[in-house]
């Protein structure tokens, strides 16, 4: 829950940012989409928004013709329909952009763009995995079922993560999926990490979220914005023995993330951080914390800066461990920073750029949460169907053979498959360097809805055996609930999706 709430930012927050930052930003989505521009071109945010708006029609006209070839038949059909309907008005071209047209914004993706031109790449089924990803899936599935599964119930009841298991996760290389080999990681790609997170969640969503936060938020932050020195200092440890944690949310700032009140001040040889953080995932296990604090509140959100705090820092303390409904084995704590002094080398990236990093990371992070949720849904579904199709008989037949059951089971599988298609499409788009913000939001929103629905139905299919704490059915359902809350609530995802759509369809 590193990020309960994040990023979509409420209208109130936008208002505050405007005042504080003196920037007429329309909304956070706009800001976020355009972040890549100021980074590369160095124009102001305002200019970039203006440029983007005026450049849009021209650039989309080009895209229309060059992309058409690459469209899959089904999409081509839908595009034809759309184009036909809007053919009379040339202005409509912008509106009728095919929905899978690669957009050019880079969206602060942590992986380098793999293809500059995708027109020559033959389309493959979205379920296709590379050799590495398939090997990852097999290895993680085996490890999860043999090693994690026997511990799942006990860890949930004890509300704590088995330290021996954390050690084994490091040994397996699961904590350094994308960290390059030179730093002791596996050097795999983003989708491989997604595959791993999904496979873990099929067995235990708590272990899955620990691995997810560590890989997609913490490791990625260092890989992307850490200096060579920071990388050398921390990546080998993050890959082999140090759990990381991502500290953004606060008592006063959840969905309205940039309202954070933790302050940082410059000292002679570093920084001093004071404030508190809340809902911080992994904080019991972690020794390494990425902390967002405002270095210059007069600049509003543009004062937000990212720092690295190690657990032994003086003034740092874990105030309270939350007792939760689900993902109980994953720790969630309140952290206090009482004038914590850190050396100046512990600045991550640049001063005042923390908000950009947070947005970029959380956009990617949502794909990880989507993977956790599809894995959870699949795990709950499999757990239940194995029971109703093999064990439980009523009225002289297996309960899974009644049509009323079969239709529910089939419907659920369809929904899981749809969520996974959204998930893998978002992951592939990110890897291809395309704009994936809406895709990530859609994948996260839908997979969390499906996870909750399917895991709830699964309990009903299993009857009493689903309701007792002997099996895992009830646990999947409790665990599913968090999917609609952390890394952007469902309403925030819907805001994001709607805003991006509205922008596209506004003439």
């Amino acid at each position, binding site marked *: 829950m590193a990020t309960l709430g994040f990023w979509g930012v409420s209208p109130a927050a936008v208002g505050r940012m405007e005042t504080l930052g003196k920037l007429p930003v329309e909304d956070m989505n706009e800001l976020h989409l355009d972040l890549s521009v100021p980074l590369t071109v160095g124009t102001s945010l305002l200019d970039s928004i203006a440029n983007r708006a005026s450049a849009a029609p021209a650039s989309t006209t080009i895209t229309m013709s060059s992309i058409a070839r690459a469209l899959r038949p089904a999409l081509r059909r839908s595009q034809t329909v759309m184009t036909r309907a809007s053919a009379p008005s040339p202005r409509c071209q912008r509106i009728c952009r095919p929905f899978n047209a690669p957009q050019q914004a880079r969206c602060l993706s942590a992986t380098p763009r793999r293809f500059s031109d995708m027109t020559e790449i033959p389309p493959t089924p979205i379920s296709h995995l590379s050799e590495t990803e398939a*090997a990852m899936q097999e*290895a993680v599935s085996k490890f999860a079922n043999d090693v994690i599964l026997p511990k799942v119930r006990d860890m949930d009841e004890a509300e704590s993560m088995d330290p021996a298991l954390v050690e084994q996760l490091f040994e397996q290389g699961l904590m350094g*999926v994308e960290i390059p080999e030179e730093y002791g990681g*596996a*050097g*795999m790609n983003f989708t491989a990490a997604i595959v791993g997170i999904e496979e873990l969640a099929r067995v235990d969503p708590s272990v899955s979220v620990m691995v997810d936060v560590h890989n997609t938020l913490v490791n990625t932050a260092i890989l992307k914005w850490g200096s060579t020195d920071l990388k050398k200092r921390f990546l080998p440890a993050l890959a082999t023995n140090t759990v990381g944690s991502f500290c953004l949310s606060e008592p006063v700032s959840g969905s309205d993330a940039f309202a954070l009140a933790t302050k940082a001040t410059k000292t002679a040889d570093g920084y001093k951080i004071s404030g508190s953080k809340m809902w911080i995932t992994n904080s019991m296990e972690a020794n390494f914390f990425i902390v967002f604090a405002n270095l210059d509140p007069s600049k509003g959100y543009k004062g937000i800066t990212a720092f690295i705090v190690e657990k032994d820092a003086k003034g740092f303390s874990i105030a309270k461990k939350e007792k939760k409904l689900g993902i109980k084995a994953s720790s969630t704590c309140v952290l206090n920073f009482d004038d914590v002094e850190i050396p100046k080398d512990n600045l991550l990236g640049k001063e005042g750029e923390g908000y950009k990093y947070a947005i970029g990371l959380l956009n990617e992070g949502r794909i990880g949460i989507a993977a956790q949720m599809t894995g959870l849904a699949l795990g709950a579904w499999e757990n239940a169907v194995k029971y109703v199709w093999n064990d439980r008989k009523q009225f002289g037949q297996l309960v899974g053979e009644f049509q009323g059951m079969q239709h529910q089971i089939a419907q659920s599988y369809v929904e899981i498959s749809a969520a996974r298609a959204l998930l893998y499409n978002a992951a592939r788009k990110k890897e291809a360097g395309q704009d994936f913000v809406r895709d990530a939001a859609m994948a996260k929103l839908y997979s969390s809805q499906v996870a909750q629905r399917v895991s709830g139905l699964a309990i009903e299919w299993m009857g009493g055996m689903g309701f007792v704490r002997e099996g895992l059915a009830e646990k999947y359902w409790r665990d599913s609930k968090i999917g609609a809350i952390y890394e952007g609530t469902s309403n925030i995802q819907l805001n994001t999706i709607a805003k991006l759509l509205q922008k596209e369809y506004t003439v």
Partner: protein
Amino acid sequence: MSALRILVPVKRVIDYAVKPRVNKAQTGVETAGVKHSMNPFDELSVEESVRIREKKSAPVEDICVISAGPPKAQDVLRTAMAMGADRGVHVEVKDGEELEPLAVAKMLRAAVDKEKSNLVILGKQSIDDDAAQTGQMLAGLLGWAQATQASAVKFEGDTVLVTKEVDGGAETVKAKLPMVITTDLRLNEPRYASLPNIMKAKKKPLVKMSLSDLGVANERRLKVVKVTEPAPRQGGGKVEDVDGLISKLKELGAI
């Protein structure tokens, strides 16, 4: 003793957790779309080879894994290399073309000559056809010592002590290299391939060849007449006590 050059034959089989189903023509089991993985006994062989090296039980110069099978057999070779084998040899056989144990043994003999192996560690059987013949046939063809169903392997100078579980205890045999060892369930617990090692395995050499490159032909001596599912088990009955048992047995004419 000279450094070990270990050859580890591995086979891609239907995963042990999958329930095999007989195909419609009753000529074999359904393999299309079914999860496959490395024969569990072969995992033990790979693990033991890597442990011999890691524990420095004996100097190991090379651990080569070899598999005969369809292109997908490369997956199990990669897994073996991720577990610690140095390189792989893939003998390509068309999908659906089965090799009999004698053909495999002949192929392995040729591979032993080619790779100058002095120790072959292989599973005692593969879990698909359960023939449990290849290791013994290979030792016979090579004229080497053999120790089957190993539950422990120990090196003492230039001799190898291999323990096998037998009825009522353990039997240990002693042999000199070169030799063939077949592995059994309790020999070790195979490791999981870690992610960094999966990546490293991609860079390890994997050579492709055909049966004819090894001078072997796929001669078939056996004909599968029919494959059927075992009859479903008849449920038994419960008796209350010893008297009940006796009267039941009497009733059935057993006593």
